């Protein structure tokens, strides 16, 4: 494959239409801004899911990216160039993700791709991105393989992964409730990988796995699984069930009053999956990377900016998915600024090993983009349902926080083999 795509891009890139970057609407309507007279806009392809199991989270993810981009555009863009975005729905389907990535790169001329909730879709997109050398930000998919076996030179992973969350949760739970653990696993990569690392940790801390129940994606009736759990009678159920499946699971567990016994560990709890649910649906402990109720400087202003930009969304405060989408996009734009060019390799080098101060991240610890796995090593919080909420949005009570080095995913480090810079096609976006 040729090393340079500059000439073709230069040929195609001269078009620019009118229209401000206003509220985002439609599948991939162009939100064009005035191109600088001297330069064309920087084009970013948004690959978040708009339908399927993760439609809800995908919308939140996209709002995060759009806020970061509009803030930068309001300040005059990056390197004097405005940012343009195109969004195409990946339908939470890997095959569609693959085609969407092809199209965004070759037809929409996007130099960067951002967005993912489903690990299957993230995998599919990153393969296409790597072949073209296009930087891809996996904002919200937390399968450990994303920064392990399936890591790529062009891909950066912004969420905490299943192992991080399991490390934060498993030991506490075994100490509190005992070692008989049952795994309830969503039957796809994220579920399996998370269950695997939970299993290893349970054994490491002297617990025992009594059973593992696989939950097909799209399951709505959990009665068979819940019956089996009752019969096995474990002390702890470690669930790795995501998206709409999890909403259904929560309702049914709450309906049967099984929320307190056994004790539940829900590996990670995405805000869009629980927002608006009755509090009794929010049982057990779970991990998250960020919460709007964190008592840290900047959080309040961040929430206000969100509310000003999205006055009409039903989700009144930003959650972890929005946060990841925002942080990833804004760090990408900063890296372009630091690199002083839109050359993909130069930007990758800027991102690798970059340390993000705790104050900017609105977390308790400094975070770093691991140069070896491309995953952001960050604070992980353990939370549970808030029994004394300040208002209807205040659903979480933060129990503990773990620093990045305590929850580091060592296995991903061993499994990840990044492509070399030479193997990665280079171009200027």
């Amino acid at each position, binding site marked *: *494959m040729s090393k340079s795509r500059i000439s073709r891009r230069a040929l195609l890139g001269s078009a620019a239409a009118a229209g401000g970057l206003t509220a985002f609407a*439609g*599948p*991939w309507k162009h939100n064009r801004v005035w191109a600088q007279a001297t330069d064309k806009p920087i084009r970013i392809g948004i690959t978040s899911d*708009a*339908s399927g199991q993760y439609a809800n989270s995908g919308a939140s993810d996209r709002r995060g990216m759009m806020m970061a981009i509009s803030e930068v555009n309001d300040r005059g863009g990056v390197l004097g160039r405005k940012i343009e975005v195109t969004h195409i*729905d990946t339908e939470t*389907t*890997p*095959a*569609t993700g*693959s*085609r969407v990535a*092809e*199209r965004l790169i*070759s*037809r929409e001329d996007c130099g960067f791709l951002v967005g993912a909730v489903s*690990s*299957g879709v993230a*995998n*599919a997109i990153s*393969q*296409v991105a790597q*072949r073209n050398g296009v930087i891809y930000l996996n904002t919200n998919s937390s399968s450990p393989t994303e920064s392990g076996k*399936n890591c790529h030179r062009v891909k950066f992973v912004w969420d905490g992964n299943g192992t991080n969350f399991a490390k934060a949760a498993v030991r506490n739970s075994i100490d509190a409730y005992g070692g008989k653990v049952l795994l309830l696993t969503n*039957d*796809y*990569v994220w579920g*399996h990988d998370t269950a695997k690392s939970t299993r290893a940790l349970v054994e490491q801390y002297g617990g025992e796995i009594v059973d593992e129940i696989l939950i*097909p*994606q799209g399951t709505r009736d959990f009665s068979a699984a819940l019956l089996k759990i009752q019969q096995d009678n474990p002390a702890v159920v470690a669930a790795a069930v995501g998206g709409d499946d999890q909403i259904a699971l929560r309702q049914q567990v709450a309906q049967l009053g099984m929320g307190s016994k056994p004790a539940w560990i829900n590996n990670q709890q995405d805000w869009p999956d629980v927002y608006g649910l009755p509090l009794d649906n929010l049982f057990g402990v779970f991990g998250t990377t960020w919460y709007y109720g964190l008592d840290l400087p900047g959080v309040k202003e961040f929430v206000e900016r969100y509310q000003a930009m999205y006055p009409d969304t039903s989700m009144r405060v930003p959650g972890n998915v929005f946060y990841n989408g925002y942080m990833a996009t804004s760090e990408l734009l900063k890296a372009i600024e630091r690199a002083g060019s839109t050359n993909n390799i130069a930007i990758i080098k800027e991102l690798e090993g970059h340390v993000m101060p705790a104050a900017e991240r609105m977390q308790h610890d400094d975070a770093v983009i691991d140069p070896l796995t491309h995953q952001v090593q960050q604070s992980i919080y353990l939370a549970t349902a808030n029994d004394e909420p300040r208002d209807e949005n205040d659903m979480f009570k933060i129990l503990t926080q773990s620093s990045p080095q305590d929850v580091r995913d060592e296995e991903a480090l061993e499994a990840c083999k990044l492509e070399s810079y030479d193997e990665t096609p280079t171009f200027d976006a």
Partner: protein
Amino acid sequence: MISLSDIPARGGSPFTRSMGLFVLLLLTAPFWLEPIGLYQYLGMEIAIWILFALGFNLLFGYTGLHSFGHGAYLGIGAYAFGLFQQNITISLWGGLLAAITAATLAGALVGAFVSHRRGIYFALMTIAFGQVFWFAAIKLHSITGGEDGLLGIPRPDLVFGPLKLDISDNGALYWFVTIVLLVAVLALWRLVNAPFGRVLQAIRQNETRARFVGYNVWLIKWLTFVVSAAFAGLAGGLFAMAQESAYPDVMSLHQSGLIVMMVLVGGGLVSFWGPVFGVLLYFIARDIIGGLTETWLLWFGLMFVIMVMVRPEGMAGLFHVLRARLPLRSRKAVGPAAQAGRA
């Protein structure tokens, strides 16, 4: 209503005007795809689906066996290609052979179950088998990668004697897919215009009569099913290369239904080329209408419903009727179907 058999046949040489146009379009596509706002990858995907649709129409249009689970064989081909690369050796021909073999075997097995069925029962049985394969692809996690699919399938070099070509780039791969498609189209053309093709149509028109005339109807139906599955497998192998992965998605009932829609809308029931129209319409509509509105399937679905109501012969049938009304042109350029109409 007209059917495949009502269109006068040409038989003999496959080098008709339609074939010429088809070859011309395929060979020039890389030069006009981007200027008209499409892209190379889409062209490749369309070529692969044309291959799949034409093979499928052997069963659907020619023999009148309405399979609603044909996506399964496309998927099996894709997985076989990928598993061959990952577990045996990286080889283009080996992978494609594995894809065809696996789909053929699956087709032979299912064909044995369904070939003594006809009408809607045939359709229902194929749905059931399609679902079994789809389900297995999702559940056999350790082999297929489950719902996330089999990832990292390479695009192996094209080795032809001493010649060794890198086809890992979308442009190069398109040329390879096109050549495979052209060979397959010629083979299919010969097949349906040979006496065998006429027997197929005879079975479609009246299975009992065909049996009385002395044909082993079961065997012929089974063979057709197997051949059709083999083409699907080949398409699947190419699809795995295009996507660099294999996903269970193409095996779902939804996708199997879509290929039926494409073939029917295009006019697979009345013309050899019907499936080509259908695939083109579907993919280009998906890309263009899909760009304008997220609910593009609504419009495509409505169009399909109206088509079934007023013109079930599809686009090819429409062209045929239009052409028949024009007194000047001869009708021979339309449909290359066989001469069973006279039988």
